[in-house]
């Protein structure tokens, strides 16, 4: 390669050295130009700041309302709650075009505080934060800036904070329906679930799923077994502790782990798999597809036939969490002056959680099962059917 030639010898033609000099000069001139450009930028950026009055009202986007999201360390494309919250901002803009939105993706827990501060200084109409990881940072900022509206996904404050709307979801209710449906569709008498991590937002799904399977067994005198999650017999269910033991990938991104776990469950006889692990579920889908006919799945969080289209033919249904509608509602409320802080709980009753349409399984799910699911849904809403797995005997 050219790099191997020796240093330019002194006998080299003068033209060559002249070239050297002119290139260098050009570089220096360009450098000066870019320095000037930066200086101009600094000056022009400065003019955006108020010149008088400490709390001079500033409108970030002329005449508009700005919704701002700080993601947790999963990032904006996590195929999970960060992305759903962002989709909610987009949805809000569709409803009210005067709304604009932006986001910052945290790469470490240290980013939460400065990023929230950046958005407070930007005068965002509402700041959306995501997950229990950001709960302390959000509460501290809410206390420091009482006039700033916040909403946080997947968390619940006790006591509530008046300028924070905390959104959380009783996903064991729709997972109960998912568990019942899985048990009804299983030919082998075994269904399986696994989680991304042993944390409440994950295990609440697994808990409801297992409860649904047990309920199926009870009313149909069947013996379908749920693998992958064993709820603890003694626990404080009311306090939101979904204690138990189960199968976890301890990772929300490595699809290979999802594939391994799904293969393990199928090797033990399960023919319906319910992964609760975000993008890791895609690995499970690959395994289920490989296993061939007679092996199905249920997707989690969002409608899989939309978010993971390529595997739609495998999904009996999806056990969804209404992050998009609830965040969208919070943003629109803040934009239209009807925002109230506190806690919001998504349930089957308020459609904050639900199971999605069957899509390709519309003709395969027996009508009797669909009818029974509607009855169960009404029973859960009325409080007549418990979603606690310990209410039913295990097969």
């Amino acid at each position, binding site marked *: 390669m*050219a*790099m*191997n030639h*020796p*240093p330019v*010898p*002194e006998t080299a033609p003068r033209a060559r050295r002249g*070239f*050297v000099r002119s*290139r*260098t000069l050009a*570089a220096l001139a*360009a*450098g000066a130009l*870019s320095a000037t*450009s*930066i*200086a*101009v*930028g*600094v*000056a*022009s*950026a*400065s*003019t*955006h*700041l*108020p*010149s008088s009055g*400490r709390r001079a009202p500033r409108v970030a986007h002329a005449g508009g309302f700005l919704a701002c999201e700080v993601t*947790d*360390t999963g990032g904006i494309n996590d195929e999970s709650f960060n992305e759903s919250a962002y989709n909610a901002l987009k949805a809000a803009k569709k409803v009210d075009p005067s709304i604009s939105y*932006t986001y*910052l*993706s*945290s*790469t*470490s*827990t*240290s*980013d939460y*505080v*400065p*990023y929230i*501060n*950046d958005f407070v*200084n*930007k005068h965002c109409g509402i700041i959306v934060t995501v997950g*229990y*990881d950001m709960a*302390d940072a959000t509460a501290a900022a809410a206390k420091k800036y009482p006039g700033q509206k916040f909403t946080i996904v997947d968390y619940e404050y006790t006591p509530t904070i008046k300028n924070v709307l905390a959104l959380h979801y009783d996903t064991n209710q729709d997972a109960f329906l998912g568990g019942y449906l899985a048990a009804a569709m299983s030919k082998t008498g075994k269904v399986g679930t696994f989680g991304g*991590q*042993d*944390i*409440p937002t994950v295990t609440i799904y697994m808990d409801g799923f297992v409860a649904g399977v047990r309920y199926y067994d009870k009313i149909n005198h069947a013996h379908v077994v749920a693998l992958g999650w064993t709820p603890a017999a003694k626990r404080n269910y009311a306090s*939101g*502790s979904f*204690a138990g033991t189960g199968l976890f990938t*301890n990772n929300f991104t490595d699809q290979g782990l999802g594939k391994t776990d799904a293969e393990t469950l199928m090797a033990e006889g399960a023919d319906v798999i319910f992964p609760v692990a975000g993008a890791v579920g895609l690995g499970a889908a690959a395994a289920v597809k490989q296993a061939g006919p007679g092996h199905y799945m249920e997707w989690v969080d969002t409608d899989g036939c939309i978010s993971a289209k390529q595997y739609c033919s495998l999904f009996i249904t999806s056990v969804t969490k209404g992050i998009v509608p609830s965040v969208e509602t919070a943003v629109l409320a803040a934009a239209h002056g009807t925002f109230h802080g506190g806690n919001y709980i998504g349930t089957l009753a308020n459609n904050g959680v639900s199971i999605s349409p069957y899509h390709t399984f519309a003709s395969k799910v027996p009508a009797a099962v669909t009818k029974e699911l509607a009855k169960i849904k009404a029973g859960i809403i009325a409080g007549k059917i418990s979603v606690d797995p310990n209410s039913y005997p295990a097969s």
Partner: protein
Amino acid sequence: MTRTETGPPPAVAPATAVEPGPRGEPPAWARLARRLVEANVAVVTVLALFTALVIGAILITATTPSVLHAWSQVGSAPGHAFYVTGATIGDAYGAIFTGSVISPSALGHAISTGRGWTGAFNPISETLVKAAPLILAGLGVALGFSTGVFNIGAQGQLIAGAIAALYVGFAVHLPIGIHLPLVVLGGAAGGAVAGFIPGILKARTGAHEVIVTIMLNYVFLDLLTYLLTSRPFQQPGQSNAISRTMPATARLPHLFGSTLRANLGFVIALAAALAVAWFARRSTLGFSFRVIGANQRAGRTAGMDVRRVTVLVLVISGALAGLAGTVTLSGTDFFLSTGYGGNIGFDAITVALLGRNRPLGVVLGSLLFAALDVGGASMQVATGIPIDLSSVIQATIVFCIATPMLVRELYRLREAGGGSIQLFMKGWSS
């Protein structure tokens, strides 16, 4: 291919390029001019930064809708297209600067009214906060590199340090004057233990430290994940994977008042840089580190204990990474979760490379990287240009620094006579 790069410097023939002075030496201006066109450390670094800014500017031009729109109408308003391009690039780089160093207008406002100092100095404070762990972990990696040991495990070591510091933080109850130093020492010890493992494995069995340290990153991350959901680390009353918080007596004091997050962590980082500089240049042990880094066989022949040095360098490197984990925990975060530490352990490798394994270089490189990160977020908020631009700039800088011959060819620089670029990095198979 790189033989000529790392070989001995060429003979001083080029000195005759300029008219010899009265005593046979070229005049001062000529020497300066010559230094400016040769590929020495300073020139290559400045040109690397410059190249990165140019590439960033091209990306901004090519991806910003308003700029593209202006160029689509270049026929009717050519001046406007250039104006929009210049203004957008200027706004973006300006926002990085005002977001990471200081905003002149906010400063002016604070000076004229006597209020709003926090807002004016917050950007530089945030840069110092972000730089502190990078400096510490970067020093550790750099010390390893210059001794011929590739510590890719800074991420795991900083997690180990943070776990140890957190434990000392919540399990011990003491007044701050005793508690805080104990927490810091605990963090360093945690990192040192994590560094000792690959060190002793390499010294005893010859296990390659690159493999072992990379794998240990996963071990410590999984250990953290486990601890976060088990007692006594998990926050009481929480079933989420989140740790207890640091008590007030285990938190690093703020440097400039409670509203700015800049804390003692940055001072610790600077002190560590001084200590490493002294250690590497002035101490006997540091001398043997350098000798073994330059030529292991020569060191062994001179009676140096290569095994002992291998273990020690990884222990010290790990302790520095452990400190990096501690200053973030005790300075700003106060709790651990699975997202703790982000990419610091890997950015540390980049920073060590950028700083050419020298303490001052690591400090300056870390400040630059921290400023680009902090300013990048402000830029995204202010202008809508994604923060990824900062990553592109960082990556391009490192790319240019790591391949000095590329910069030399690109700008037609002479090869440096003395003090040329030599990365103290020997082959991976050494």
